[in-house]
């Protein structure tokens, strides 16, 4: 990063200590002092409740908003009554004498029970669980197959995975990232199938993240990606447990986030973005057909506008005779050169899309009609954009939405721009160079150190461009270098 050298007079910044790494602070026998310390540490937050019990000798301290009164009643007060106030007889309690630990526990939704004249205090887990019901992810609907999805609760998400893989080798490794937020991350993989080197690499990268907060899966992937400056996503994100599990069984790693329904899967190949859980639920011939449609849509999405511009602006020799008069009739009276037309139309479509996303669905459909029909028709009648260009751009954006993965679809739409520019400068040769660069770049990209885009060889065809019946897919993808390369115990090489 030689361009931006760091300035010398940097402000000195205090180092934030993570909650789990706080130095111990011995509690005193004085209840008042202890409470005072906790109050200060929590910056006199108003949701800190201190409930003095009758006699003012004992106090229950908790954060009001994240604790559950019902649980408190059940786990603390009811047993207290039964044991006649002897806290030591209650089960499910933790004992500690480190006040900093008490503060951390408060933040995690625990209640602290303190007694005057006793340096030891007791912790009860009374956290209030706020969970959303398990619903199908809106952005990844399937027609057939399971309709559950991840939600914001990491425990529930792990539950959904564990339920699907009931084997002792399913490993879950929890890590925390972010000095303030302490976001919990779970690496999930199947030991024995996953390549151990990849797990080590991923753990190393996660541990290297140093930041105050880590709030989203997208931000996380930017920290640990191999090539952050690449236009292509290097982690597959999904909210579907079935997709996650099928990827785990291929030998990949799933990364779950607390308070985030998105699950990242790595290492992936380019082709993974074109696979949908639907593929494995339909007849293989149908699935193959759909794969072909997607491949076609990929090619269409990145080359169609540039191809059209190159034809109209450079090589009109390639237009077949029968098409000459329709094409000529359509573009004769358009004021702008084709590249301006194209960019204009792309912007219109992106505007419609962006405005449609955030609006509630009743209004969203109105936008679709207004944008699509009214503007589309008017822009042609006004002579700003030709009929053909409307068709071309509409087809292109349709094709880009065919991709099952949202990130990839966005990448593709951006990718059309350089190609449009190149083709408007050099025609077909420009497109050739553009695609050449894109492909070389794809070959360079790696996902967790493993190759992202491998040239398709015959063996890889089985689950990339076509999908053969399940029993023929005997091997795990070679790219992953799995220690268990075959999918069943019976090694049969006859088909490979």
């Amino acid at each position: 990063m030689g361009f931006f050298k760091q300035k010398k007079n940097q402000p000195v910044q205090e180092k934030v200590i993570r909650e789990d790494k706080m130095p111990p602070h011995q509690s005193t026998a004085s209840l008042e002092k202890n409470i005072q310390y906790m109050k200060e540490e929590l910056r006199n937050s108003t949701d800190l409740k201190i409930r003095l019990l009758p006699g003012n000798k004992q106090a229950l301290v908790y954060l009001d908003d994240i604790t559950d009164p019902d649980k408190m009643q059940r786990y603390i007060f009811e047993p207290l009554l039964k044991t006649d106030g002897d806290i030591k007889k209650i089960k499910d309690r933790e004992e500690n004498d480190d006040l900093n630990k008490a503060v951390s526990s408060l933040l995690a939704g625990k209640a602290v029970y303190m007694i005057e004249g006793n340096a030891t205090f007791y912790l009860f887990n009374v956290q209030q669980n706020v969970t959303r019901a398990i619903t199908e992810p809106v952005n990844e609907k399937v027609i057939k197959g399971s309709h559950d999805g991840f939600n914001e609760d990491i425990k529930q998400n792990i539950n959904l995975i564990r339920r699907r893989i009931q084997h002792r080798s399913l490993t879950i490794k929890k890590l925390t990232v972010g000095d303030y937020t302490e976001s919990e991350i779970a690496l999930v993989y199947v030991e024995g199938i996953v390549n151990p080197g990849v797990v080590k690499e991923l753990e190393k990268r996660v541990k290297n993240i140093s930041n105050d907060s880590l709030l989203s899966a997208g931000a996380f992937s930017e920290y640990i990606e191999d090539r952050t400056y690449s236009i292509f996503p290097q982690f597959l994100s999904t909210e579907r447990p079935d997709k996650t599990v099928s990827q785990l069984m291929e030998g990949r790693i799933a990364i779950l986030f607390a308070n985030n329904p998105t699950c990242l899967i790595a290492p992936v190949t380019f082709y993974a973005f074109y696979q949908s859980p639907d593929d494995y639920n339909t007849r293989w011939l149908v699935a193959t057909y759909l794969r072909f449609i997607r491949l076609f849509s990929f090619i269409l999405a990145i080359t169609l506008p540039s191809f059209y511009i190159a034809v109209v602006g450079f090589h009109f020799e390639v237009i077949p005779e029968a098409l000459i008069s329709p094409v000529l009739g359509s573009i004769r009276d358009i004021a702008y050169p084709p590249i301006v037309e194209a960019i204009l139309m792309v912007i219109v479509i992106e505007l419609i899309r962006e405005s449609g996303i955030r609006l509630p669905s009743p209004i969203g459909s109105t936008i679709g009609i207004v944008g699509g029909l009214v503007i589309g028709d008017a822009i042609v009648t006004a002579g700003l954009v030709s009929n053909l260009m409307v068709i071309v751009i509409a087809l292109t954006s349709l094709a880009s939405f065919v991709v099952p993965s949202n990130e990839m679809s966005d990448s593709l739409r951006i990718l059309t721009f350089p190609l449009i520019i190149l083709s408007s400068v050099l025609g077909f040769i420009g497109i050739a160079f553009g695609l050449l660069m894109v492909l070389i770049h794809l070959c360079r990209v790696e996902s967790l150190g493993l190759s992202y885009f491998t040239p398709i060889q015959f063996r890889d065809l089985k689950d990339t461009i076509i999908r053969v019946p399940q029993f023929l897919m005997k091997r795990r993808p070679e790219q992953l270098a799995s220690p268990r390369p075959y999918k069943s115990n019976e090694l049969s090489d006859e088909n490979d």
Partner: protein
Amino acid sequence: MTKSDTKQKITLSQLAYIFIQSQIGVDILNLPTVLHREVGADGWISLLIGGVISIFFVLMIVHISRCFPGEGLFDIMKSIFGKTLGSVAGFGYYVYFLVVAIYLLTSFGELINEWLLPETPILVLYALMLICAVYTISGGLTLIAKVFTFFAVILFLISVLFLFGFVDAKFIYMLPIGQASFSDYIEGIRVTLYSLSSYVLLLLFLPYAQGSYKKQTRTLVGANLIVIFFYLYTVIVSFAHFGSDQIDHVSQPVLYMLRTADSVIITRIDIFVLSLWTVFAMTAFAAYLYGAERAFAKIPKSKKKMLNVYTAAIIVLAVSYWSGLNEKNFRVIIDFQDKITEYFTVLIPILLFLLSFLRRKDKKKEAVQ
């Protein structure tokens, strides 16, 4: 993330694709015409003979590499010729690879300028080509292998498109056989051998290739056969399509015959093929540029890798620009290349092959063990 070159390994199929892609450059487009001018209707026979000879050269190269396990071209030369003479020869190869790279770049530029973009400054094409090639090379051997493998699909695609040439073909144009003189044949074989001369580059890739000596030999001979058949196919299609008189007037016969190839969706398939040809031009160019980069890395001292690439790139760009200025300059490059090609593709490999029996290292190691 860059790994050191020593760790990089390429598979056998990748080796084959690298070989194929580095052979098929821009030359094949005008090879039929050149052959026809030299040998007449017998051009394809001299191509076959030249092909067989090139297989012998491939076998020789594999043998040389086997005698010096783990050593690239320049180390081998140092081992055989001694340090000083080896370095001189290494510098010679540096120049040779650069000249070939320049030739490939200029001829691609000329081609595009003639066929598609007469007004565009040729420097733009050179620059784009260089960017692509440098981008490929900077990723190291694995990236080169991957990229070359990926683009091999296009060879098959183009072969299919060439079938259009058979629509108007008359095989009577292949006759009569045996009208050319002996010296014509020699000239034809020379032309063929030069257009298949990228076997020299193999010495750079072989040390990193997986597989036993036997498998490597089989793969490379197979790859060479594919290239020879592709050449033969192109030559026969163009001979049969154009006949014995017109072909002398057409400088890129395969492209020319696609001018009338019509399909329902598009006409003028030659324009597409020409655009696709960018890929071949790029891969062949990148292969030679890689050779030059390796050579430059070996001459004085070890330097930063990207520096080698950039130096080679800048030299190539400058000379290409100069030679693209007018036809006279271009002739200078071609003549120079013609002069030195013989030494670097025929004489030195043969010399290396003969001397490798004396100074081989693989046997010595076994003896020590």
